[in-house]
């Protein structure tokens, strides 16, 4: 009877996995082997390793890295200071609240804010710097991306900080460690899992952004995501789009393996 109820739970879930996890990946891999005319070929892969696509891949990784690094730099102090406040759950909620608002609306707001006659330019003019072209630049692209991803970086770091035993910090201070030393040797290593989770939550979506590149960066920045969207929905070259997708999936799998292995290593260390 136990087995029966077990399979009752397992079957719908397994069906979901087969249909929406395994099948799509296999289909993408399968489609990457066909060109526009629908004949079997490895051309897409050859094309991917030409300088055009390589440069795009590299710049995409570079932007994703920048976005992740800046998010982390801003998010860590924020999360840390949040844990020190009264009513921290309420403040945390207020940090997460903007992430509930549709991404598109936020991007749209920045079109207004960064526009030639927008608020930012008025402020710049008032200070005396003068009008700048902000929209459709790398700066605006990175700024808006960081803005959108920052709650996803703050949340795991905040949780990791909350889980940390505060007496460890007191102990370090009592033993004469400076504030910086305490942070570097005690607080940061203990919250590294949160940092990792946050970086994962930001880096991979940042690699594949495509809506922001269109609206904010005005097609100046082409990420892997933009390229996939272009191939699937505009040029209808599903084969090439799938090929790029295959490489994104591989990059993702590599990242998952790296973080997963480390976690296992940490668990082993704890057992010893």
């Amino acid at each position, binding site marked *: 009877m136990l087995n029966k109820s077990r399979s009752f739970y397992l079957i719908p879930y397994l069906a979901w996995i087969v249909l929406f996890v395994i099948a799509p990946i296999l289909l993408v891999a399968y489609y990457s082997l066909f060109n526009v005319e629908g004949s079997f070929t490895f051309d897409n892969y050859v094309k991917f390793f030409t300088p055009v696509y390589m440069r795009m891949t590299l710049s995409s990784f570079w932007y994703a890295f920048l976005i992740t690094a800046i998010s982390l730099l801003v998010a860590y102090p924020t999360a840390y200071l949040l844990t020190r406040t009264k009513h921290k759950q309420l403040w945390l909620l207020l940090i997460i609240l903007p992430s509930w608002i549709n991404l598109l609306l936020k991007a*749209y707001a920045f079109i207004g804010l960064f526009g030639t*006659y*927008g*608020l930012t330019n008025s402020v710049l003019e008032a200070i005396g710097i003068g009008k700048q072209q902000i929209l459709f630049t790398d700066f605006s692209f990175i700024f808006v991306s960081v803005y959108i991803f920052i709650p996803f970086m703050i949340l795991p770091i905040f949780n990791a900080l909350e889980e940390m035993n505060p007496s460890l910090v007191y102990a370090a201070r009592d033993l004469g460690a400076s504030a910086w030393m305490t942070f570097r040797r005690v607080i940061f290593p203990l919250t590294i899992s949160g940092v990792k989770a946050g970086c994962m939550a930001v880096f991979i979506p940042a690699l594949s952004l495509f809506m922001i590149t269109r609206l904010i960066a005005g097609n100046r920045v082409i990420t892997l995501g933009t390229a996939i969207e272009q191939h699937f929905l505009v040029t209808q070259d599903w084969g090439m789009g799938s090929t790029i997708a295959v490489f994104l999936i591989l990059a993702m799998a590599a990242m*998952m393996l790296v973080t997963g292995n480390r976690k296992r290593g940490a668990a082993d260390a704890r057992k010893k």
Partner: protein
Amino acid sequence: MRAKNKWSNLYLVLVFVVLYAPIFYLMFYSFNSGGSMRNFESFTLDYYKEVFEDTRLLIIVLNTFVIALLSSAISTILGVMGAIAIHHIRSHRPKQTLLTLNNVLIVSPDVIIGASFLILFTIIGIKLGFVSVLLSHIAFSVPIVVIMVLPKLQEMSSTLIDAARDLGASSWQVLTRVVLPFIKPGIFAGFFMALTYSLDDFAVTFFVTGNGFSTLSVEIYSRARQGVSLSINALSTLIFLFTIILVVGYYFINQRNAKPSAKEGR
């Protein structure tokens, strides 16, 4: 020490200002009769009237909510089943495999989910539109629910179930009287997360939606590409207020749930 506090407060305030500035900027100009997001001329509610008279937009809003509620309800059921199934598995290897497969859709970029689902629906022969959007929203919400429910299941002591069985409870009673009440916070959290993901999703929907069907994100995207129109501002103000009501409600429900257990803990 006090000076330090001042700086840290300033930093937090700055973060909050930057986080909320775009949202309030949008809201502020939704009342501008000038017709653009600059030079505030005079107060008007015309754009709100425009929103409420725009039947196409209202239908899209309705679509978005129907998709969000339906998909998160269905994915919550599926996800809870999945979490229980994973929890039941004793051996290490299959459990890890299932968990990895579960997490694939969480870490996958939206564009890949969208593109691969587009291929999937085309091959199966599902017409792009309501059904395809609903299915894909269910699909990407399931793993989130599993992730939210699983820790609660692991927290639950197995002696609770043994006790219930010893006292003669059937499987169904064990599930509804013991397991589900215990993991209820996880289920709620999962449902809300699924709701958020669905309401917020743009990329996946953009891929799998056909010509006739559109959700709010896709509609805003196509309108924003044509330039600024203040009816979008008015709409976003309404959405923002709605979100706040939802979140505050959720917060108070959570508070009320948390309090008695905290007292018991003491």
